[in-house]
């Protein structure tokens, strides 16, 4: 099972989109407890996924540091959404490669790759269009450091011609072939 690192509900409303949490010790304690509950309830390992966010809440630690501690204390691992990471980096003005370098490689279990675009004055994590070069570069950086177990191409409507999707799958297969026991797939 996987879950986003964010909140989608308050006592007053459903937000329909994961929103950023505060990166602090008390928030971390809640996350660790929730991650443990999910793993016990589902009897499965949990993969925590980074979210797309334009907003960053001030906190006492960086997002990778929070993820490292969450994995270490709860025993979960990470599903790194590299398109979300790229969009968040562009929107918030941080270096996605540096962010990635701060994540402990042993925690990374899987990656997701997708396209994104800029519409008007906003970056959109729309899962449409080809996977851009910076996302490929992030994927390359991950597989160099982490023995990932799964890599997923994420593509929403409109789907391209199958030959274009197959080309991306081939590129991904070649990329993750550097890592042991890696698999690749495409999801529409």
């Amino acid at each position, binding site marked *: 099972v996987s879950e986003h690192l964010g909140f989608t509900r308050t006592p007053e409303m459903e937000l329909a989109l994961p*929103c950023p949490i505060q990166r602090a010790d008390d928030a971390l304690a809640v996350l660790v407890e929730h991650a443990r509950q999910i793993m016990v309830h589902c009897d499965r390992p949990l993969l925590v996924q980074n979210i797309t966010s334009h907003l960053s809440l001030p906190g006492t630690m960086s997002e990778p540091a929070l993820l490292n501690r969450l994995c270490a204390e709860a025993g979960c691992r990470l599903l790194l959404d590299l398109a979300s990471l790229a969009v968040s980096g562009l929107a918030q003005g941080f270096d996605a490669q540096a962010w990635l370098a701060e994540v402990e490689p042993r925690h990374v279990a899987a990656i997701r790759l997708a396209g994104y675009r800029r519409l008007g004055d906003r970056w959109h994590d729309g899962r449409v269009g080809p996977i851009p070069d910076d996302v490929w570069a992030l994927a390359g950086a991950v597989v160099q450091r982490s023995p990932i177990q799964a890599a997923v191409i994420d593509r929403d409507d409109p789907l391209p011609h199958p030959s274009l999707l197959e080309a991306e799958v081939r590129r991904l297969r070649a990329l993750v072939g550097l890592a042991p026991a890696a698999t690749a797939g495409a999801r529409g």
Partner: protein
Amino acid sequence: VRAAIRIAEDAALFVLDDEGVFFSESRQELHIFNTPATFIWCCLEEQLGLPAIVAAFAETFRTEPHEARHQVSTVLARWQGLGHISGADLSGAPAVDLPTTLGRLLTTPGLRRELRQAPLEAARRLGVRREEVETLRGLDLEALERQAEMLADRQATLRRGAGASGIEHLLARMFDRRRTELEVAAAWRLRAPRAPVAVRHYRLLSTAFAVRFASLADEARVHPALAHLETDGPASREVVLELLAGRGGYVLVEDVVPVGHCRRPAELAPLVKLRVRQTALNRHRYFLDIHAAVVLAGDRALLLPGVAGSGKSTLAAALARTGFRYGSDEAAVLEGNPLEVRPVPLSLCVKPGAVAPLSAYYPEVGRLSVHRREDGQEVRYLPPPRPFADDQQTYSVRWIVFPRYAPEEPTALTPLPRPEALRRLMRECLTLPEPLDRGRAESLVGFMREVECFELSMRTLPETLACLEKVTGAPLAPRRGNRGRGREKQV
């Protein structure tokens, strides 16, 4: 003297029984307020200030003044945080946590404006915990705005629903791993004979259809499910649905656009039936589409809303044999002002578990062809007994009954408060084509005021029918077998 507390222009409360139905147009939200919340809102509408509201609340609900102040402040703080009111000074209200604050900010443009103009004042109005005020002041307001836009986009997408996909979605749908439906349809059309082997004409709601079949066998599989909707001949403006067949399956084309495909002959009827329903609904103007069966007692409609498996289709089928007229199996379209229901009288969908109980009412049901839906479910399509409801007119709704198949419990029909019924009804809302405005929200509440609402626990069909007879006063006819009235002519 005007009170300092102002109600947002887009907010409205409609009283339904002792509770309130609150509507916020900007948030596109309907809420059921309990009696105390309704009371407080009514005080605001009467322009009472906070002390007067607290005093009135304490007197009406017989609470201590400090408790009344706490309850009123808590409610007002929440409404102010959600942008429903402004101008309330609520220093006594409980503080809220950061996620709650963020949720309010992300969904309320006015609060973001306040935060930009006067951060400390905004934090105070939001009731932010003291230790989190600095966090709030440190927010990147441009980023907050972008995040709010992203959330609004997502919420709008969810409201529109999956049916709103554009033409690009249709063109990109895959037939198999290598070919799109469009490519397959184009190739097959080139090979297909110019004239279809068979053409049937149907009408549902305001849409006339011509369905073209590539073979008599395909026609024989599909037509019985639509036969009761057949018209005498072509209409002047028709939607043309064409079934193209080839190696590997079938593609259904609507006018020139492929709109679906299936692999096996058993999947043909569900594919065409679903498309007829979707196209007819898409081309019809209505207020909302409820997941509900509909039957008529005389000219008064009984709505049976419920999720799949609740037993509504089985119940509707049995009622249609025992004195009621069939209206809809799973789509109740509400439209007009006052709101009335328009039937969507597609054939009844009978799942395997319903065959035995319905055999007493429809001896032929076990002999009907078995089809396979896209979700893998095996179904039979039972033509509705004639006369069924006319989809060219609307009917006033008199009863709403929420059925629940519960074989371990006694059959019981229990009155349901209207506000709770509205809550449950909206849970079954499939489509709301247009955003809600005050007028539509008011007509929805007006509609609810005129109906009797019940929840129904069903153990057996005969017990259930007897319960409904008492409520509706509809004389139940004896069960009819295949020699009875309304036996469907199979064409």
